[in-house]
């Protein structure tokens, strides 16, 4: 008799434990149903601009938490991500459950076009308000735009500390830096374009910088990796507006690479995530989004994934809080909002590109 009671008690405890594992603290009680539905769906298809290798810790941890939900993670560059998504939506094949991309403007555009699912995430209030877009899209990271330099070949006051300093260094030492300054090709890289648009807002001396780029015949790439490689090898010496998350990771292992967080202001990009409206596994997608925004997911983003956690209540090596501590009010996150889609209008964009080219002077 007594034994039975204990057994029953244990059973209740076990059930409670299982339920507890499914519904994290602070989540609504009916969340268990979402998780159950997600487990039935069995997988979540993620399209992401973050390469698989970097995302591995998140996928592994998510699987530890939800062993029944398989993550089909597909990495591609942000343009391709967008192209494939719209083509799949148009063909009614809805490929992606979760879209996760650094091309913030393209992501917001898709949301504005009604291609995202509305979902009131229990974690939605925990991220800064600028990073929550109408409960349809969420900024998940806090990645600074930085300067990089070759440590062996650039030293002392040649290392620019702020934007004006960058312009001054390349304008005053044109011979040394001829062909050795690099940044994104803003015609090809959406992220590079977005950074420059923001620069025109915060940096009054942008014209000097452009002139310096023109004078030193700057070299442009569509990816961060190329710039890191070329600055590290010494083919180039200085890199402008490089995605800091990647740069800092490489700088840790590569003794040739130096990184500067600009002192006057540091732009911050936040990878935007949303759930596709046609998602075949909407519940699994919700669970995945909640996980990424949760303290557990964010802690991993701030440590193993090395992308900077966007949440303020997370202790890790790379966090928004630490960056803010270091730079004070000079961190300028690019908001997840419609205003950043302004230059997706092709006429406006071409005008901007035309002016940029003109600003370079003769190349």
């Amino acid at each position, binding site marked *: 008799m007594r034994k039975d009671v204990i057994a029953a008690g244990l059973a209740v405890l076990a059930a409670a434990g299982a339920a507890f594992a499914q519904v994290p603290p602070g989540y609504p009680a009916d969340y268990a149903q979402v998780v159950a539905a997600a487990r039935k769906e069995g997988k979540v298809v993620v399209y992401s601009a973050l*390469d*698989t*290798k970097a995302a591995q810790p998140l996928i592994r941890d998510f699987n530890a938490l939800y062993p029944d939900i398989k993550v*089909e993670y*597909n*990495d*591609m*560059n942000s*343009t*391709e991500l*967008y*192209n*494939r998504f*719209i*083509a*799949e939506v*148009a*063909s009614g*094949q809805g490929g992606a459950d979760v879209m996760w991309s650094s091309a913030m*403007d*393209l992501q917001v*555009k898709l949301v504005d076009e009604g291609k995202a699912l509305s979902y009131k995430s229990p974690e939605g209030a925990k991220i800064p308000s600028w990073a929550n877009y109408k409960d349809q899209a969420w900024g998940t990271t806090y990645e600074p735009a930085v300067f990089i330099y070759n440590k*062996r*070949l650039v030293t002392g006051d040649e290392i620019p500390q702020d934007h004006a300093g960058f312009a001054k260094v390349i304008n005053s030492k044109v011979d040394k830096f001829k062909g050795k300054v*690099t940044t994104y*090709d803003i*015609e*090809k*890289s*959406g992220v590079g*374009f977005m950074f420059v648009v923001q620069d025109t807002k915060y940096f009054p001396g942008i014209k000097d910088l452009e002139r310096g780029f023109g004078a030193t015949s700057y*070299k*442009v*790439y*569509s*990816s*961060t*990796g*190329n*710039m*890191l*490689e*070329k600055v*590290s*090898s*010494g*083919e180039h010496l200085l890199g402008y507006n490089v995605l800091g998350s990647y740069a800092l990771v490489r700088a840790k*292992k*590569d003794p*040739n690479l130096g990184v500067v967080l600009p002192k006057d202001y540091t732009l911050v990009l936040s990878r935007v995530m949303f759930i596709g409206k046609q998602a075949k596994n909407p519940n699994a997608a919700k669970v995945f989004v909640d996980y990424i925004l949760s303290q557990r997911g964010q802690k991993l983003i701030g440590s193993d994934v090395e992308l900077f956690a966007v949440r303020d209540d997370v202790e890790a090596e790379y966090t928004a809080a630490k960056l803010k501590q270091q730079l004070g009010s000079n961190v300028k996150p690019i908001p997840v909002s419609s205003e950043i889609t302004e*230059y*997706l209008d*092709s006429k406006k*964009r*071409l005008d901007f*590109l035309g002016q940029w080219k003109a600003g370079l002077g003769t*190349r």
Partner: protein
Amino acid sequence: MSATAAGALRARPGPLSALTPWRALTILVTAAAVLGPLSLILYQSFLTAPFFDPAKQVGIGAYEFVFADSDFWKALGNSLVISTGMTLIAVPLGALLAFVMERTDLPGKRWFEPLILVPSFVSPMVLSFGFVVAAGPVGFYTVWAQELFGGAPWTLYTVPAMTVIAGLTHVPNVYVYASAALKSLGSDVEEAARIAGASPFRVAMSVSLPLIMPSLLFSAVLVFFLGFELFGLPLVLGDPEGILVLSTYLYKLTNKLGTPSYHLMAAVAMCIVAITFPLVLLQRYLLQGARKYATIKGKAGRMKELPLGPWAWFAAALLAFFVFVTVIVPVSGIALRAFVTNWGFGVNLSEALTLDSFRFVFHEPTHTRAIWNTVLIGTVGGALTVACYTAIGFASHRRNDGWSRFLDYLVLVPRAVPGLLAGLAFLWVFLFFPPLTPLRTTIFSVWLAYSVVWLAYGMRLISSSLMQVSPELEEAGRSVGASRGVISRRITLPLIRAGLMGSWLLVFMIFEREYSTAVYLLAPGTEVIGAQLVSLWQGGAIDIVAALSLINIILVGIGLAIALRFGVKLRD
């Protein structure tokens, strides 16, 4: 081509039954595979938005935009300069090398032949990347040159440098045609010139090479035309400097407006086709001429090799220089980069040695899948492709009707479309043509695109095998009452077996090397090394690019070794 098809044939025998069911099917499938994607591109070029966008409108806005864009004209100019320049380099050099290899007594020359052909089997993406790490501003060779001489006398990222590299890497294309033509030329005329006191160089310039002029002209058009399709080389070497050619301009348009501008890309593609298609037709015309010409032979069949004498040094130097620049420099660059963590000025390479890139490649499912898929598409895919090509070959073999001529022209069409865009068109087909949609994320999509893109090349291989079968053998079969199907299966097919095996090997190598076609088809499940390289290069994962490139070279090398072992002619 199955038993039932043959049965159907037997029911209605006779040489004049023009359109048997399986022949009709073959023609229909080929036409659909070739014209479907192309007409999609044409249609797209006259729209204002992606064709699946409800907001699209019909118009010529795309062409107006492209023609008003100064970058387009710059790209067109660069393409013209590079194409012309590389033709001027590749044709004389290829012809000279062919003369040396075919007609002279240069010692050890047989050993060189595979090396001469290597650049045509290694992906241009891999070669260009090899040049960057070997001879770029801080490349291994550049750094050594600087340590030895205090400076390197070359720069890589310029139009002339790209032209020279493109010219050198296209020497094999000239070489194969020139040497084939030289083979069928009697040596008596050359001996006559020698007796009259001409030096070997003089013999080459005044006797042998003029005699193979039609072949040289044909290969000149070929190289010029390939110049317009260059993609990997300008992508790697020209991009950072902002040097555009037509194909990289097209690629750049993917993102110029912030959102995909398929209509602009399609318009550029149609411009490229407008240039290349006439060239393809010209090529076809010249090829017929070249074949006619090559039948003029000297009397005796015996070939006599020309003694080079002191010229041997010149010839050997030429060969060595060519092999060093086009094979050894890039391949050694890649091999080195694959095994070091970082490089450049003042980096001690022995301290940077690592196997990490390979460890990563073999631990990463996408990369192992890419390697596996690349092997699969070359072996199994290659065999299937050869089977399809053979079916098409039989559909026009020994028939001189309108359908055969239609097929002849049809197979040339894909040649004119840049692989990059052909891939995009196939992505659309796989997305929006319901029967094919389930196959989109399988390697089948890449296989189909490859097979169509390389149709013209493959058909030349097959038809040259078919042509070797003398008609009387087939007529003998017919005279005892065999139907066409039976003749094909029992007589022709067994006779060309060796030729088909050779075609398979060549298709294997071509498929290992191909990259641009798969760029847009790249998805989980369809990874192939070539496309993976483009994507990784864009992403800047240089160490992985190097490791995968090396693996790719090894795969091609295995194919090459097997081909040599079995004496497959490395040419079409």
